[in-house]
């Protein structure tokens, strides 16, 4: 999914989603964003699987029974 920065309003970024709806989010989500910038939002399955394993290990170490 690609989103477009419609404008910056103070510390908020107004982001246009597919379907032409706009949503304000903290600018910190898009550091250095300028109006007109396009961001690609994609799912990172490897990162999710890696985290799941790591956290599961950690949790199991700490769990008493």
């Amino acid at each position, binding site marked *: 999914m690609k989103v*477009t920065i419609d404008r910056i309003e103070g510390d908020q970024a107004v982001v246009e989603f597919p379907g*032409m709806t*706009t949503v304000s989010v903290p600018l910190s989500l898009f550091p250095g964003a300028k109006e*007109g910038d396009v961001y690609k939002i994609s799912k990172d399955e490897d990162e999710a699987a890696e985290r799941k394993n790591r956290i599961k290990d950690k949790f199991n170490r700490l769990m008493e029974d």
Partner: protein
Amino acid sequence: MMKIRNKFNFVYILVVAALLFGCAKTADVENTQFAYDASVTSELPASTTKKIDSTEDVAVSETPVASPAVPFEFSTEIAEMSDTPENAAQEISDVQAQYRSITGTLKIVYLDVGQGDSIYIGLPNGESMLIDAGESSASESIIQYIKDNNDKGSIDYLIASHPHSDHIGGMAAVINAFEIKSVWMPAEIHNTKTFENLLDTIEENNLTIKNAKADKVLFDYGNLKAVFIAPNGSGYSNLNNYSAVILLTYNGHRFLFMGDAEEESEAEILAAVDDISADVLKVGHHGSSTSSAKAFIKAVSPKYAVISCGKGNSYGHPTNQTLAILAEFGIGIKRTDENGTIIFSCDGENISCTTFLRTEIQPRAPTAVPSETSETSTVKETPAKTQEQSITVYITKTGEKYHSDGCRYLSQSKITIELEAAKQKYDPCSVCSPPR
């Protein structure tokens, strides 16, 4: 503020007639004095300049294509009045400024579209304008308002002040809903689908885009005129500064529409425009601190400032800084987030303001007060409580009393002022007994 004493109208017409007939065979230079503002004469629509160029065209009453009725009316009166007072030349500039070819009511509707701008303008000559169309979620209520208040189903001048979604979001739907006569926008693109979709819609409707930039004339019917006074440049880092800024004048009453123009554009306007004063200012960028620099507000010195913003918006519009600057100059403030839809009407003499809160439910209520039914459905007025009329009275340069229109004490000096403001500093005139 210019006000015309009716008893002088006839004299003025004679003066115009005398000058026109006296100069009919002389150089164009003299006749072009009739163009309202020399700086934009070259941009006048062809039909208007044609009328001005030659009294012969006037005499044969050829109906212009783009500017109907009005020049015709103007010319007819001139043709009938051919007496020639000799010492009237010095009056000519007063005449061109004060002669009223268009009469009727100008109605400017600052629609409550939440966070965003949309301003519908019913011109006294029957034409209509729409400046911006809010977010896409606002399109339905904008379209409904126009349908309820525009018999012709057309919009003569559609202006996208700049390509941000809170100004153009609903515009594609508006274009699909009405016959659009002209589309104006600044020469700057945006990467959003919203903007691309607007361009597609313009193309699908076989329309083209006119470049909105400083010194372009939107229309000029003499006493009714709209010009762009920004953008004055290009290469801005922020789309807001590309905002098409419009100065609309009717019988000397002035209405300024800033779009989201910020301080950079304001400074350019101050440098480029001699007189930026206005009766009503649509404040730039929803009352954000990025706009409304003190020097600019001082130069405009409006009686009223209109702020178009959404209730509880997350951007803090309008900011306390902007509100404080407006308050410092004693400017009355109307806000769409608090007052709802704001309507300024100008009958050619006086300006009045009415506001309508949006009701929670939007029924075409059978119980609605009949006199209000013409006002609309989606932007539905609440009962009389939220309505307020401002009353205009007059003061003189040096006097200590305020007066009604027509009072004999106004023969030398006549300055428009709101009744509420007048009451604070002046006493009512005992001769004309103005409202108290």
